[in-house]
């Protein structure tokens, strides 16, 4: 019961935030300057044809009516039609979502595996020259524009050395029987390598710094001193008693990182022409394909909001001292 109530409150808050973001999104796209159909309407259309289109899209109704239609459509999973592709926005988004998720999760898993080890190592090396040299480097990776890192890797490993392809998810003209075959093919993985590495290098700083400072805290706790006094090997003390406990808050931050990463994807996907949600958002905004831009934005927002909730709940579950009383 006591754990159920905060979950309920948080979930209600999530619904409220979701509704607010959906409303802001509606206002953003409806109140912007210019005709929303400008990209759709051909200059050769007659005035009657234009009128018909405006009626068909419901743009002749009042703002409030449009808003309710929009909400009802969203609840039914209806995201409208893309101006450019003339296909349902939802189809397009489901097509691209796997690419974005594969890129996000693979890079974050690499980043967290590296960050946790390196963070524990730097905590162990506290006060050494290694630490003094490594910390500014880690801070600098946090200060890099992700797309610039992508450009540098692209120039070195793709254009200079030719080890990896320059963009896309697979070579032109290749065909695979199933999605599973595609995603496990060497061709796909070699395309994934550079964007994945870019995002991983950018994201490893957070888990690394968190792990390091948690390790420093944990190593001063009584139970670690106790383990030392018991005469356990340094390995057992550092790994079994220290690292395991220091890792919990780092794992919580994984959920937050997924949300941040989705936003960073926008630029990195553009650099590597990776057909994902972020790149689609950018090209849809540029081409004034508003339904598609709106849908991609909404999808990213939903993942960010859900991940914030997951992080919150994990935090409560893992650390009983935190409560929402």
């Amino acid at each position, binding site marked *: 019961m006591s754990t159920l109530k905060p979950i309920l409150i948080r979930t209600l*808050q999530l619904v*409220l*935030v*979701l509704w*607010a*973001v959906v409303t*802001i999104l509606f206002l*953003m*796209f409806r109140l*912007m*300057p210019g005709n929303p159909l400008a990209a759709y309407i051909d200059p050769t259309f007659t005035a009657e044809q234009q009128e018909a289109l405006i009626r068909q899209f419901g743009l002749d109704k009042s703002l409030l009516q449009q808003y309710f239609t929009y909400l009802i459509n969203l609840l039914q999973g209806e995201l409208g039609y893309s101006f450019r592709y003339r296909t349902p926005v939802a189809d397009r988004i489901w097509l691209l979502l796997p690419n974005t998720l594969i890129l996000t999760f693979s890079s974050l898993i690499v980043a967290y595996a590296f960050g946790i080890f390196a963070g524990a190592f730097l905590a162990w090396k506290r006060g050494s020259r290694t630490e003094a040299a490594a910390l*500014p480097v880690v*801070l*600098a990776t*946090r*200060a*890099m*524009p*992700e*797309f*610039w*890192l992508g*450009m*540098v890797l*692209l*120039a070195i490993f*793709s*254009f*200079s050395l030719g080890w990896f392809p320059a963009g896309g998810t697979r070579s032109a003209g290749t065909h695979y029987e199933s999605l599973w075959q595609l995603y496990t093919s060497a061709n796909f993985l070699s395309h994934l390598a550079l964007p994945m590495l870019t995002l991983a290098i950018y994201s490893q700083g957070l888990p690394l710094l968190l792990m390091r*400072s948690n390790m*420093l805290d944990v190593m001063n706790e009584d139970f670690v001193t106790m383990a030392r006094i018991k005469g356990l090997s340094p390995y057992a003390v550092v790994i079994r008693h220290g690292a395991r406990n220091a890792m919990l808050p780092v794992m919580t931050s994984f959920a937050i990182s997924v*949300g941040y990463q*989705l*936003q*960073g994807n*926008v*630029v990195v996907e*553009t*650099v590597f022409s990776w057909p994902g949600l*972020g790149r689609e*958002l*950018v090209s849809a*905004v*540029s081409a004034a394909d508003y339904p598609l*831009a709106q849908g*991609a*934005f909404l999808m*990213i*927002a939903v993942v*960010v*909001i859900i991940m*914030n909730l997951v992080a919150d709940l994990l935090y409560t579950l893992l650390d009983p001292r935190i409560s929402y009383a």
Partner: protein
Amino acid sequence: MPETPAVVPRSGIARFFNSMQLPVGDPFTLAGLIIYGFFFVMAVFAPLIAPYDPIEILYTSDYDLASDLFPGERGHILGTTSLGRDIFSQIVWGARSALLVGLTAAFMVAFIGSVVGLLAGYFGGWVDAVLMRLADIAFGIPFLPFVIVISAFFEPSIWNTVIAMALVLWRDTGRVIRSQVLSLRSRGYVEAARVSGSSDLKIILRHITPNILPLSFLYGSIAIGWAILTEASISFLGFGDPDAISWGFMLQDAFASQALARQAYHWFIPPGLAIILVVSAGFFISRGYEDLLFPKLGR
């Protein structure tokens, strides 16, 4: 905290700097301040330092386009772009955009966040409830996509980008300042001021605000970095101010002009390094601040 406030500065500006409690003794902070100083001088004296107009298309003495020159060729320190513009001059002028974006965005973030935090923390009740739900909503908005959409829909200008950033980024500052105000509100001297009949406004301005200024400054210095990185991304994606030479614009120009395939490292490495330096400087300063404000973390 500094052990003894030896000299109490008289003038307003000096008092302001004193109230920010800059941890100048910390090597990280000092490094950050020196980097800021360097770029500040570069930005202010850009017309004197830059040998060329950053958007002027240059020609060689025999009337050929001076394009794609390598560093050192014909006296161009970092070479030229595909359109025949001097790269070094663009870097120098880019410092102006970066500092302008960084400082204004940081000021707006720190200001909005502090006001929200002060109001929510001091008055509590429905004011607090409303403002903190607004912060929840701001946390639900994907930051970069939001700035992209706003920058793309309105006139492309640095100010729209800055405003879009401030509309979202105040959330962290607001929450932290609020919790700080909550603990300050029940301190003895605040109680004393209240009992002696000071107005709410006076208590907030005289007794609480001076104590949260260092925190506002900490979050402001983090926001400088975020703002510069975000502006770079926006310019790179092509939604930036077309009249402003920024480091993000340079990277977009290089990317679009196939500088990667031609291995023109001298074109796209320097703007990236400049961004890293300025943004790290903000991180370094905020690190020094954290040590000072939360001594426990500073180990």
